[in-house]
């Protein structure tokens, strides 16, 4: 357990569900401003790793440190407040509220009960919502009920909801799943843009998309790291070809 300069340091992380180790003695480090992509076959433990970092699942062993601060035992909302944002696999937005309200709720102010009661929709909030909405291509749809957005737009909205929190570490679980080719390209560009000044962890299957965005790729297999490095190194790793990419 050493102090590191990394944004995120995961060391010896293990979680076991009734004896089955979904993540087994995993260690990896994420740098400042890095886009890290995690790939791997189904059941490799990718989503579980994100669950562990954001506190949804509690680790059996090991440590997760965010800017040298131990977050392994913190509660979910406390982890979020340290500066970690997480997007779920299925677009997770509030269908009953408008796009504006979705973004506003995610704005990091008035997070206590009293704060929420006395929260004022001031010019600053409106400006910030407007900015983010433009970034995620939804500036024209602020008044629309979120349920009525297309699948791709919902994915963007959720990315926007994270963005408005301005997290230092952003975790995205399959952000382009179910998107059209055009949407994928826009999303790749979006991710490139929003990763300025923050670190991003992405889980993704689409290798073309991975190649476009990744600084570094981690391949998980059966809860362990199979390979790690640049996309080219990983692509040509015989072990990765064997279990994941196929011949």
């Amino acid at each position, binding site marked *: 357990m050493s102090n590191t300069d990394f944004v995120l340091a995961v060391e010896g992380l293990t979680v076991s569900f009734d004896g089955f180790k979904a993540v087994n003695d995993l260690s990896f480090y994420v740098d400042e401003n890095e886009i890290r992509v995690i790939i791997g076959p189904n059941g490799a433990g990718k989503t579980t790793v994100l669950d562990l970092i954001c506190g949804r699942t509690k680790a059996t062993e090991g440590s997760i440190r965010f800017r040298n601060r131990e977050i392994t035992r913190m509660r979910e909302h406390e982890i979020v407040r340290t500066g970690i944002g997480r997007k779920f696999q299925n677009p997770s937005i509030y269908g009953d509220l408008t796009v504006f309200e979705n973004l506003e709720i995610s704005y*990091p102010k008035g997070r206590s009960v009293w704060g929420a009661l006395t929260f004022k929709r001031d010019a600053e909030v409106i400006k910030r919502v407007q900015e983010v909405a433009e970034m995620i291509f939804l500036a024209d749809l602020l008044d629309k009920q979120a349920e009525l957005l297309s699948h791709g737009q919902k994915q963007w909205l959720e990315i926007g*909801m994270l963005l408005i929190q301005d997290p230092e570490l952003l975790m995205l679980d399959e952000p382009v799943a179910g998107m059209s080719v055009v949407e994928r390209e826009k999303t790749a560009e979006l991710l490139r843009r929003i990763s300025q000044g923050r670190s991003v962890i992405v889980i993704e299957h689409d290798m073309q998309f991975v190649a476009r965005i990744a600084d570094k790729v981690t391949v998980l297999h059966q809860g362990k790291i199979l390979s790690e490095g640049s996309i080219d190194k990983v692509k040509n790793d015989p072990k990765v070809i064997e279990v994941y990419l196929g011949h």
Partner: protein
Amino acid sequence: MTIKPASLLPGGNLMGYALLALLLLLVLPLALDLFRLNLIGKYLTYAFVAVGLVLCWGYGGILSLGQGVFFGLGGYAMAMFLKLEASDPESTKIQSTPGIPDFMDWNQLTELPWFWQPFHSFSFTLLAIVLVPAIIAMVIGLAMFTRRVGGVYFAIITQALAAILTILIIGQQGYTGGVNGMTDLRTLMGFDIRTDGAKYLFYYLCVLLLFGCLGLAHYISKSKLGRLLVAMRDKEDRVRFSGYDVAAFKIFVFCMAGVFSAIGGAMFTLQVGFMSPTLVGIVPSIEMVIFCAVGGRLSLIGAVYGALLVNFAKTSFSESFPELWLFAMGGLFIAVVMAFPNGLAGLYNSYVAPHLARLIARWLPATTEPAAVPAIEAKQPQGAQP
């Protein structure tokens, strides 16, 4: 940007509140005799519970089948004060222990139990009406919501609590008056609560307090907290991972619903003149949910009408067909859930409101412009759209 979640029925515009106030403060007192008005006052005490349920269940998605517990706590607190006042040594001198409530004497108690002592004080009683339910709701909330107990499980547990409290009250009759409840309540600080004047006074007090609760509930529902509740009902995890302590918000709204119910309970005791365990248990608790559902679980005003109408129907129906009432009630609940899930407010909004709006628009063409929209919408750029 108007603060109107697209799916939410308007919890009530000014017009709706004004009409309700007109009906309750003017029309009904003028149109009904005192006996019927007192009945309306009794129905309104359930409206407090229904308004709380709109926040808790309609907005927050927390279905409590145990609101009778809080109604009872408020009602009993008030009844304890009134009972002590009615049990002065002078009027209880034929008891073997004068100065304690009659049912205690019948149960061979020889002194006032410690938890009865502070109810000699009216200010303590008023505090207790608000604080005891709030604290109990908080304890339940802490135990349930921080462990992520929700949905059906929470509903069942609250139902069990209603059963527990009833059994406790009936079982401890020396301390609580048992199954008969607390009866023979006479005066409030020397003021006879059984006179016609008192009945009018309490009716108006009840309406005013109800509007106080409505105002508070309206404020909450229109604040960011109201939107958060709707968001939690939909995607609890997303709210949690946006940095909110979901349990704290649930506890807050559950406490609010409990306090509203307790105020209703206290007004019940004042207007009806007794409190009994039949108002606490499972059946009344479920009935309270039905009031809310019939009125429309997303409409604060609807909840008041729901409580009034269902109770009115109950009274008239059970006068003529006492044994059929329960079936009618069950049928009503099923009908509401199956046929019009948004209750009366939903029916109003989809069938009546559009016609009204058209009528008003014809008469007052100038005033139908929507509320002023802040600059945000004016300067929306043409964003890229897929």
